């Protein structure tokens, strides 16, 4: 699914490199826990994986295609088609309804919409049910929901159309313990059911237990070792 070779990235204006990864492979359908403390370049790596950032050196290949080889518009379209992202918080457009938030990726990629069983609207409703969001909330504005509910909607949005790669950047850090476990279970199960690869980034090692693989970013990152 994801292949990284000889990746080097430095933020413009920063002193030195923040990322230097020689090799990283993530197979399809795996659930990977990527561990690392704050500030070590986790977010940068996620940006590179999703094709939002482009590395000047090295290759980041998603489904065999290097992000850097594509032009900006094509990158965005490809991300719309193959990637789902869940942030720590503020995942939704507050003035858009819950249902329309879930549909967002399908609006930006026709191919993704086509993969939805029964059409995007039906698929969205199915997903919302699976994340246990009551139907009465579906037409409501997204900012009317609680944090926990918003995270669940975010998961549904990331999963609609069964993208190849789901990236989760500390999605449970804003949730309390009870909600956290439920969310984790939910996310893992939906990814497995849809066949999506999950890259879960967090600084909390205790969550690592349920995952297929555990990776440590500081161990992978030569730049961290050198600095």
């Amino acid at each position, binding site marked *: 699914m994801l292949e990284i070779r000889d990746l080097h990235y430095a933020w413009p204006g920063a002193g030195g490199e923040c990322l230097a990864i020689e090799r990283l492979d993530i197979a399809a359908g795996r659930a990977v826990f990527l561990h690392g403390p704050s500030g070590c370049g986790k977010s940068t790596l996620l940006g590179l994986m999703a094709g939002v950032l482009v590395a000047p050196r090295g290759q980041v290949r998603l489904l065999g295609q290097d992000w850097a080889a594509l032009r900006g518009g094509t990158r965005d379209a490809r991300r719309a088609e193959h990637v789902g992202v869940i*942030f720590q918080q503020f995942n939704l457009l507050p003035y858009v309804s819950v249902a329309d938030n879930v549909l967002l990726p399908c609006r930006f990629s026709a191919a993704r919409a086509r993969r939805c069983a029964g059409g995007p609207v039906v698929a969205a409703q199915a997903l919302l049910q699976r994340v246990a969001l009551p139907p009465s909330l579906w037409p409501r504005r997204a900012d009317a929901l609680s944090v926990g509910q918003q995270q669940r909607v975010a998961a549904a*949005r990331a999963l609609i159309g069964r993208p190849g790669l789901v990236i989760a950047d500390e999605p449970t850090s804003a949730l309390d313990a009870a909600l956290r476990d439920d969310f984790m279970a939910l996310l893992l199960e939906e990814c497995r059911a849809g066949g999506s690869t999950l890259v879960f980034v967090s600084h909390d090692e205790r969550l690592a237990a349920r995952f297929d693989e555990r990776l440590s970013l500081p161990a992978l990152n030569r730049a961290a070792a050198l600095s």
Partner: protein
Amino acid sequence: MTALLQIAARSAWNRRGTLALVVLSIALATALLIGLERLRNDIRGSFTQSVSGTDLIVGARTGPVQLMLYAVFRVGGATNNISMDGVRAVAAHRAVAWTVPIALGDSHRGHPVLGTTAGYFEHFAYGDRQPLVLAQGRAFSGTLDGLYEAVLGAEVAQRLGYRLGQRITLTHGLRAAGGDAGGELAAEHADKPFTVVGVLARTGTPVDRTVHVSLQAIEAIHLDWAGGAPLPGVSIAAEHARKFSLEPRQVTAALVGLKNRVAVFNVQRFVAEYEAEPLLAVLPGVALDELWAAVGLGERALLAMSGLVALVSLASLVAVVLAGLNERRRELAVLRAVGAGPRHVLALLAAEGALVTLSGAMLGAAAAAGAVLAAGPWVQQRFGITLQATAPTVEQWALFGAVLLAGMLASLVPGWRAYRLSLADGLTPRT
């Protein structure tokens, strides 16, 4: 991208509280621009329509524009009269086909009274050589039997609710319609009432708000007056007036028609060189053009001011959207995550601005149309100008389009800022 438009619409609606003022200011600017253009158009059209088929207007040697204004549009006052001898001399010129003398100075409940001959109804035309048509009744006879007969313009009859046979009295001098203050200050010709014998069909010109009587009748009601007030102790009853000589000696102006329009310069020169008194003859078309040239500067100034108002309102749009951008960076990151690129972000912001401009412009255009509709009857009654509630002209569409275009261009500023922010932030805005 309809998806983007929908998101833009919802986003703008979400912040409608802040944006409402911007919408209102854009509406005001558009209303000013379009309203002024409408007014300009309608006033010009109205003036142009007001006289047709008259080759020259002869009056006292004031100025061409002033003569036109009071002789045709009943606006302003005549500073001087001309003698009937002068009018007769002009009529005797071999190139002249007809002359119609007119006398102004009295009014009836705010509407000007025009003293003239029966030839007025025959020769006067408006619009595209359209003659005056009587909707009811007949013209005054101009003989001594029918001395106190009056013919009303359509607006007078409608507004005051007069019908054939109505008795009316005339007031000396011109008084504004609202100031119907009677009592001692009203210089009424109360002893000589007139009877309405005819009502003209609507023309959309100052004719509509005029009361027409014969020249002899004007003489009759002023027989026992001097200097604007009745002579104390002298009173000539209405039916005795005809015993006096009622031939007019002075009139305000005369409308002149020629046998061949090519002769207009010669007659004009004849009038200018007439030795017995200072006379002036104007070509209506030329005088109107002079008027527009004089007014044109003011029009351009008003237009420029309205343009400035539009610029200011668009600047406020840019400021409001830019100010709110910082809080929206996470929103933009969400959009990046679902597959939008920086150019989508730019398009989104630009679309928001364009939608705000569009709503403001449409509101403004509607307000201008509404204002024209609302003010139309008052303007018609007061000035004789018809404001048309017609479809917008090319110029008005152009103004509307210019506001829209300017709004779209202005929205590119926050769009561009959002583009840069999104590029820099990626998925993780540092706010």
